[in-house]
């Protein structure tokens, strides 16, 4: 992977990402199989329409996983993702970009661990945050 991020180089307000994902119906089927979530609103268009949705929608948990990727990419090989949390506020439609972003909100040392707290979210092309959340990562020092 790319160069390692160190605790000393992180500042509150620092931006994370963007990681842009393009969920296709193929990806939603792969996710359904890999995660064992076979609810038809995510891949069966007729079923999705029959429930009143405009189209199949992206699994909330897939968006959580995208945010996981955002944070493991940012933390690097020697960083550890300690916590991840998010709520599924808005729908994302298959075929539309899901943009993952974050921002550092706090850094502190706790029990010898160099912790960085971040606000994270996914947004759509209109800039609406559909999956707001937070994360804590532990980073190495240059030491």
């Amino acid at each position: 992977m790319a160069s390692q991020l160190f605790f000393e180089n992180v500042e509150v307000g620092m931006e994370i990402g963007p990681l842009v994902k393009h969920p296709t119906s193929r990806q939603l089927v792969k996710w359904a199989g890999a995660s064992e979530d076979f609810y038809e609103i995510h891949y069966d268009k007729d079923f999705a329409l029959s429930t009143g949705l405009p189209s199949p929608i992206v699994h909330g948990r897939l968006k959580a996983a995208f945010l996981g990727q955002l944070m493991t990419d940012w933390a690097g090989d020697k960083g550890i993702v300690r916590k991840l949390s998010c709520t599924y506020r808005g729908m994302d439609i298959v075929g539309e970009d899901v943009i993952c972003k974050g921002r550092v909100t706090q850094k502190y040392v706790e029990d010898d661990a160099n912790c960085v707290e971040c606000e994270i979210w996914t947004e759509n092309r209109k800039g609406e945050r559909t999956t707001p959340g937070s994360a804590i990562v532990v980073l190495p020092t240059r030491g």
Partner: protein
Amino acid sequence: MSSSLSEADKTRLLEELRENVNKAEKSVVVEIDKSMIRRFAQAIEDPNPLWQDEEYAKQIGSGGILVPPEFFCTSMMSGGGCRPEVPLPYDRILDGGGDWEFLLPVKAGDTITSSAKLVELREKQGKSGNMLFLTFETLHKNQHDELVAKSRGVTINLE
């Protein structure tokens, strides 16, 4: 969406659901192998070699292919797949979100036992009727009985 149950049935199911809080439990055992992790990484389209390249993972001292933390975000590990069945009075079910805490690294070859419990039920009055917020907590232990992760997830049941 019209409801399929009578008011009396809804009331009875809600009563039964309330009785399940802090009681309903379920455990699921998952043996995590390399191909499961590869399929997962390919599904999210994450090319990180930590999840797929054994040599690379060993070089950085992980001891083997690592499980991406967000593997615990799947339905299989912390969602419907491992939760106890509880009576739900209303038709609409939504996933509200979740919190995941990763305590120890998990690698290919580990066997994870996930034990889920309904820990909280909140009842609210929404625009279209009653809303129930069910919080499930799942503890994930490895084959050495070490707690490797904790999950909390909210399911919303709407009238």
